[in-house]
């Protein structure tokens, strides 16, 4: 399988400051098509038919989310675009926002029409403050062009917390509260922002919407694998010759991306999906990239033979412990315990009991944490124990 540009079709082609260049590329035609005689149910059906799943990491079926929110009989609903791209090693959303803000605006307007929302928010990561003017300009031009008559888009900036990329903490943050995870149910499509039905979609998920409406859900559903339709944008970084953003049809092999496109050599392991992503040893590099096997938010970090697995896992865990919101016990205390144990290993120490303690805490965290952060935080540890156990055992023996 190969590269195909659906999400990135306008990136580098249009001028992000000029709406006219976007209109020349069939811009806002999908929105016009949606508003002219297509019912809300038909749009949602089309999205469901396409098989589009959330690109933020969890992979929830997008059409289902919209349907749940669409069915709610409430006056006020919200559409939120999650542009809080905080995952270590992801920069795809930034790439998209910098080059093609108009498709996102169009997609949000379509989403608003489909679920019956009048208002949308773009939750922009604090570090992406530099994109604020560009986005405001794009929204302003879309308003002038009369494309946002029935739907208003506002930008909310984050304050630099990783956890605010998690949907419930993100909503708390928009509401002006401390960004902390809420328990679920209720899920956002039934009770979200200010208690109203809300859909929260990643930038990349929304970027697919205009193309699906324009070309039909059937067209989209023919790309990719059984359960993973369409394309995925990957941010490749680490020990590669050509780091950058690549869009591939889902189901493509990891090797194709890492060695074929990014030209990595002497790969030892690849972390797929960011800080809480799985660590794949080189022997498994022929894995397909899809929701069935491995995907995450699309961060691909490549490590070559000079890198030490324990250093990597330790640094990642330090990051997660720092970014934990502190609400639930397993994540707040568990990440700290893991940092403490991994720090010992990275200093060349390690006790006989440490491996079993790590495994015990990991399993409790995965089973009982309140949100995705705590549930996924032990994944790098578990993977490294699975594939590189001898490194840990050596450290213990040498101690």
């Amino acid at each position: 399988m190969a590269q195909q540009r659906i999400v990135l079709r306008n990136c580098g082609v249009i001028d992000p400051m000029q709406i006219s260049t976007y209109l020349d590329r069939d811009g806002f035609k999908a929105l016009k098509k949606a508003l002219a005689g297509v019912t809300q149910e038909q749009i949602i059906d089309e999205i469901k038919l396409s098989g589009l799943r959330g690109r933020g990491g969890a992979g929830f079926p997008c059409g289902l989310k919209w349907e749940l929110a669409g069915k709610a009989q409430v006056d006020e609903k919200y559409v939120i675009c999650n542009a809080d791209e905080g995952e270590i090693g992801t920069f795809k959303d930034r790439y998209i926002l910098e080059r093609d803000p108009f498709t996102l605006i169009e997609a949000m307007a379509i989403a608003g029409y489909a679920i019956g929302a009048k208002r949308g928010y773009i939750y922009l990561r604090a570090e992406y403050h530099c994109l604020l003017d560009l986005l405001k300009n794009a929204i302003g031009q879309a308003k002038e062009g009369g494309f946002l008559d029935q739907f208003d888009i506002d930008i909310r900036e984050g304050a630099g917390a990783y956890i605010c990329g998690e949907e419930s903490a993100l909503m708390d943050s928009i509401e002006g509260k401390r960004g902390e995870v809420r328990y679920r149910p209720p899920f956002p499509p039934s009770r979200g922002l200010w208690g109203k039905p809300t859909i929260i979609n990643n930038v990349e998920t929304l970027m697919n919407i205009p193309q699906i409406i324009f070309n039909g859900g059937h067209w989209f559903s023919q790309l990719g694998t059984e359960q993973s339709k369409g394309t995925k944008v990957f941010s490749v970084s680490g020990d590669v010759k050509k780091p950058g953003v690549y869009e591939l049809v889902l189901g493509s092999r990891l090797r194709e991306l890492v060695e074929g496109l990014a030209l990595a050599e002497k790969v030892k392991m690849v972390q797929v999906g960011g800080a809480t992503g799985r660590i794949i040893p080189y022997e498994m590099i022929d894995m397909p990239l899809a929701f069935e096997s491995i995907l995450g938010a699309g961060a691909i970090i490549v490590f070559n033979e000079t890198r030490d697995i324990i250093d990597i896992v330790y640094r990642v865990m330090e990051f997660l412990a720092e970014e934990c919101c502190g609400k639930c016990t397993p994540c707040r205390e568990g990440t700290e315990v893991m940092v403490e144990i991994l720090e010992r290993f990275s200093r060349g120490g390690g006790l006989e009991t440490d491996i079993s303690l790590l495994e015990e805490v990991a399993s409790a965290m995965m089973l009982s944490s309140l949100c995705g952060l705590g549930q996924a935080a032990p994944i790098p540890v578990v993977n490294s124990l699975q594939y590189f156990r001898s490194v840990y055992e050596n450290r213990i023996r040498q101690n």
Partner: protein
Amino acid sequence: MEQIALTINDRQLSASSGMTILEVAKENSIDIPALCYRQELSPIGACRICVVEVERSETLVGSCHTPIAQGMVIHTHSKKVLQVRKTMVELLLASHCGNCFMCDKANICELRSIATDLEVGLPRFQVKKRYYPVEDASPFIVRDLTKCILCRRCVSACNEIKKEKVFGIAYRGFDSKVVVDFDQPIDKDVCRDCDVCISFCPTGALSKHGEIGEEKKGEPLIISG
């Protein structure tokens, strides 16, 4: 009210919709331990000790905040659940100061009683302990955050029962802390003698100024194991 049929620990039960798993369990004399949950407060969902196994759910769910659904099959005391609960308590104890000998509330401490129930011994994790100065400037309340387990009951009790907002949470992760104002020691200006939060604190973190010779509450705890 619509009736919902569900199974808890192989018992067929029926309960009204809208109830949480914990409420149904309680109604049927099934004891699920919980630290942050109190009947008088809305669910907090922070301590994760009340987690139960729901069939077809990948993770365990918090029973205090999860509403029941038709045909749910729940296990409140399976091996998996008990193991997680034990680890939770052990994690809480690991960073807890552990000076039970010198704690006024040792005999009525909910953390200690749950630890005893679950047979959690000395914690095996060597994390740093949280030490904060005791805040005793106020004549009405003594706050010793060294003993706080961050269950947030005091925050909710103050908000929901007293309709005040004295407490809030500050900092992140392991450093998170229940604070007053911008992390000021509590004094008589912010808080009067309502005592609501004190009665909700499961540990010795919140207490009143004791008087010499005052009777101590509670039966002595017998620690097994």
